[in-house]
């Protein structure tokens, strides 16, 4: 009986991975939209608001500029670099991965891996003793 279950589980898992990859491949990624970019830019004259959420003159201007840049065929990253150069890094909500921000992006994963190692160590050590 146990064997039967194990077999069933194995087969099911196989089938599931198949279904999953099928769904992954059959669907298509959305193209970039301007709203996404507006959301990632800070309205410099407001309190903690994005360009997308704000109605200020500043936000309206930036929206026009971004639209122009999209029409010029610039990529999302290029638009952010353009904005950062003009207004400083403060304007981008998603900090760029560079020397200065390296620790910001690196530390969380370091914690994640470190924590995992601690737990692994705790459990394994205890098992050896037993």
């Amino acid at each position: 009986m146990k064997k039967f279950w194990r077999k069933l589980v194995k087969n099911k898992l196989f089938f599931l991975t198949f279904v999953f990859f099928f769904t992954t491949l059959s669907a298509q990624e959305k193209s970039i939209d301007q709203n996404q970019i507006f959301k990632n830019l800070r309205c410099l004259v407001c309190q903690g608001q994005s360009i997308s959420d704000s109605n200020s003159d500043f936000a309206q201007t930036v929206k026009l500029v971004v639209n122009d840049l999209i029409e010029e065929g610039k990529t999302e990253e290029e638009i952010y670099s353009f904005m950062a150069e003009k207004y400083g890094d403060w304007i981008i909500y998603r900090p760029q991965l560079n020397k200065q921000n390296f620790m910001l992006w690196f530390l969380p994963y370091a914690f994640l891996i470190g924590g995992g190692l601690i737990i692994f160590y705790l459990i394994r050590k205890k098992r050896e003793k037993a």
Partner: protein
Amino acid sequence: MLSNLGNILLFSKVLLSLTIIYFSYQCIKSSSVIIFKKIYQISLLQSTLVLGCFFTLIAAYVVSDFSLINVYQNSHTAKPLLYKISGTWGNHEGSLLLWIIILTIFSFLFLIYNNKHPKNYRLYTLIIQNVLILGFLFFILFNSNPFLSLSPIPKEGLGLNPILQDPALAIHPPLLYLGFVGSSIYFSAAIASLITNYSEKSFAFSIKNWVLISWGFQTLGILVGSIWAYYELGWGGFWFWDPVENASLLPWFAMTALFHSLLVLEKRNLLYFWVIILCLITFTLSVTGTFLVRSGILNSVHTFASDPSRGIYILSFLSIMIFGSLFLLLNKYRKENKLIYSNSKETFVLINNWFMMFYLLTVLVGTLYPIFTDALTNNKISVGPPFYNTVILPVVVIFLFFMAIGPKAKWIKNRFDNLGCFALFLFLALVVNFFIIYFFKSFTILSNLVIISSLFLIFSSFFDLVNSILKSRFDLARTISHLSFGFLVLFIGLNHNFSIEKDFNMRVGEVKSFDNYEIQLQNLELKTYNNYKAIIGNLKIKNYVLKEERTLNPEIRIYDNPQTLTYEAAIKTNFIKDYYLTMSNIDRSEFYNIKFQKKPLMIWIWISVAMLVFGGFLRIFKNAKIN
């Protein structure tokens, strides 16, 4: 007059705290087995006085006594009564008074409800708690006294910021403080436990309800704040990863980790020092959050009360707290040697803590990093929603799987049943996900993984729910909370995926259409109210597919005291979706900027959080029954 009364009450509270500390110390020294009766009496008196003090301030607000600087700066005679009262804690000084109330009352309740625990442990808790009370009292007296008087007495106050005049925001601070400050009691208890070497399972028992209570209120506070942000700020979102929101989230992660670890301490007498560390960091994070907000270091929507001198005081207080408790901890630390099997429930609780710490540290790093870059390189950066989404979301997917599997593990044993069930749940989750992709044509790898994992958790918790009802072994609290958390993540994912956002510049009478919708700005109305004027837009939205028509009325409000312009969103809520409409004027033109948003399943996000809290409170009632 009220100013004098308030100051007298504040001073007498200092004296009472000192007396309690003195008598507690005497009582510890003495050979008495029970706690002196007078300690109870003074504690009760202290709680009564602190309430008296608070009511004095409320009274000053209600009668608009502008001889108090605090009332003058934050109130106005034309304000509705509710907001006069809520204005009491809507500012820095008043909210600190609320801190003291919660510190004092929790201290008193902890003293009387834990009468089965050792005398010295309870007394040390009382002493530490009173030291905290003194710390905050001195802060109030020397830096942020709400009872400072003003002369000559002004005729009229400056008024309260209109976006704070709101029922949700009236109850948001008290709820949140019950969580923030409620965590002080297990901070004190943890230190008392270290001092008295009271480290058994019963220690876990003495604090677990307090952890759950503070967790429940913290969650509710965050929920109410989030709802407020949703309808009042007019941005259509409910979470912005704003530094202050992060500050409320940090202790939440610590509390969540804490009450899971407490289970292990209670059942297996393991992880004692880890539990102590969590107790200590929860309150420390709460005070840190306050420090960051009140000192004005962080740029945020909440900077309603910032002043560097406050920062220095809180920072010194915080340093003493951290170094003191760290010193004690290192002094008392000893190794634990007990068995943890890799597939046991203990392991899964550890995994929960692992993820909670990851979230906590990520949010902490994200919140503090801009301060460091600013100080070190003079380059200000923003760490916003895209950062948190990128770093945290993939981890949440794995976390949800563990959250589903964990509760099915057994204590101590290294064994798992029901592997077949998990395969079935995964299969169901994938099928549902497939249908979502197929029918709604929306797909990104990450968001669909989030949907799959949350569905997996939902199915698995639902199975537990049915199972526990059938076997009449009601562990409802945990099941409900885990189930609601699954739903919460699912609804947030769906809401994020299927939101629609459009904005237009329109003139009166104009019609715009897009997708399946048509929107018309029919007319504008001008109305005058008690303390503001409003321009009310009349907009009609037609949905061709569903053949429904809705009228929404967003407003532009012009408040008199203080003179401010606010934009009121118009929201039509039902169980499937919210329509969310904001309107703003464009200077020097006859156009209005109209922003339309469709937010699917919005209400279910709130309901999920409410159910999550319900699970927590259910556990408290159960614990109380067992007692």
